[in-house]
């Protein structure tokens, strides 16, 4: 990437002192405020998440990156309404979200999220009927066809899940989740079980789908590269308990290539934030970042 571009990216971003409380996120979209979650397991309390705050504006693509076990799934499940947070709130368009709802559709990592007794088309069409998004069966099939086309699965309408590859199954799951028109799409490492090639393809596809539909996406991954390629905002979580180490605004223009110098620097910044630099403290205070990203880094919300 050219030096000029990088300068322009940097200058576009305001310089906000880290400790200063940033303005409240706008009402539209998803806001998570001070969310904490602890479990009682084997007789003792496990704090999975502590004081998580983040916001995803309507139409934004935000990624959450963190090591395995840092509570990413728990966070998504709290947002999705499948876990009750111990503290804090989840707001969708300013309204408190409690319990599962079609305004927050989750796409899971596991390949068994499709209903095996329904074809690809029926998996989507059935969701449309259940949620009464489509007024008739015929209408639901038409809409389902359109969504399968959106995810590049035209011609596979009548395939049962066991006849589809892992990547295709995830595509159907994305189509199904999108078809009921959620306010935010929650994705929990949806490509985590795919081979590297399929994964790259699906990342590009997801970007295209996001651009075509304008859907709001909160995407969880433990892969730094994926977090950078996908997210316009990257929330870095550290483990035990899961905390927001930083929220970075991604300065790279799309499509993002891992070869770009800025990409590498961002990668390294996140890597350091995750505590992988020798001598860096994990969890507690933030490790020092390299100069260039001290400027680029905009904490979107208070990181305490």
């Amino acid at each position, binding site marked *: 990437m050219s030096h000029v571009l990088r300068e322009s990216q940097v200058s576009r971003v305001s310089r906000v002192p880290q400790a200063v409380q940033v303005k409240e996120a706008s009402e539209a979209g998803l806001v998570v405020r001070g969310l904490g979650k602890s479990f009682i397991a084997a007789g003792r309390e496990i704090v999975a998440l502590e004081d998580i705050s983040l916001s995803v504006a309507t139409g934004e693509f935000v990624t959450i990156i963190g090591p395995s076990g840092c509570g990413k799934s728990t966070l998504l499940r709290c947002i999705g309404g*499948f876990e009750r947070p111990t503290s804090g709130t989840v707001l969708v368009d300013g309204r408190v979200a409690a319990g599962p*709802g079609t305004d927050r559709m*989750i796409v*899971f990592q*596991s390949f068994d*999220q499709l*209903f*095996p*007794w329904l074809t690809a088309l029926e998996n989507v069409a059935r969701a449309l009927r259940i949620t009464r998004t489509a007024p008739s069966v015929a209408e639901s099939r038409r809409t389902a066809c359109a969504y399968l086309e959106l995810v590049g699965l035209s011609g596979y309408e009548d395939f049962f899940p066991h006849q589809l590859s892992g990547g295709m199954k995830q595509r159907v799951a994305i189509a199904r989740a999108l078809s009921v028109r959620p306010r935010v799409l929650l994705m929990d490492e949806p490509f985590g079980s795919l081979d590297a090639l399929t994964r790259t393809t699906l990342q590009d596809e997801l970007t295209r789908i996001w651009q075509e539909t304008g859907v709001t996406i909160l995407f969880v991954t433990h892969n730094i590269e994926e977090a950078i390629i996908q997210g316009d905002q990257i929330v870095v979580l550290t483990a035990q308990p899961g905390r927001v180490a930083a929220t970075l605004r991604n300065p790279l223009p799309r499509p993002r290539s891992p070869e770009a110098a800025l990409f590498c620097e961002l990668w390294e910044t996140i890597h350091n934030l995750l505590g992988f630099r020798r001598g860096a403290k994990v969890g507690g205070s933030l490790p020092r970042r390299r100069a260039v990203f001290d400027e680029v880094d905009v904490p979107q919300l208070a990181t305490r």
Partner: protein
Amino acid sequence: MIRLRHLVTASARTLRQALFVTTLAGLWELAARAGRLPALLLPPFSDVAVALATETASGEILGRLGFSLALVGVGLGFAVLSAVLVTAAAMSARIVSEWVQTLMAILHPLPGIAVLPIVILWLGTGYRSIAAVIWFAAVWPLVVNLHTGLRSVPATQIEVGRNLGLRGLHLVAEVLIPGAFPHILSGMRVAWARAWQALVAAEMVFGASGGEGGLGWFIYKRRFFMEIPGVFAGMIVIVLIGLVVERVLFESVEARTVRRWGMTQE
């Protein structure tokens, strides 16, 4: 092309099986005609075939068969109903689930026919008692399979259902039942086989005391009057029904559902 070859090999197998059965019948005929065995103990196969034909033509066999199938239908129907209720209760409270499991451990090994004496004591010797024996023979395999089937549905699929707004009975109908279907189907298979066996056994015990009866009663009657080819004819019908239900009914349901969906366990 592949389907055609599959069909050819399948029909070749059927042909071989038919050939084998025909050979057996021929051997039977020869053994009986050799004259060493009294015809009363082993009538020739041809006599059995004739008996089968005349009893069918007279409507006797169809009438008995209809009676038997209706009884099995009633017994199985009640068994399915109670298995659903028991499983629902077991799913709603852990303590009920424990009770059911204990009951199952105690009662499952007991053959249906073994409860007949008690059932006769309670309900008399009518068709109600036979239905009760069938119910008892079928209900436990149904409960076991329904229970394991429901628990085998992946948590992700249940969560997808909840995400779509499904709750309670809607969730059960849309996600849990189809997801448990492979187990439900094998439960139905075992239940049917046990019910059919229990039916014949119970009918034979009742014997002459009933005014009307099914296939078991038919066999009992023929033996009572020493019409041994009729006894064999009744047995053949029992075997045929078992085969038809298993091979035609259950196989085709399986091909259309579980195997089509790729939900077979193997």
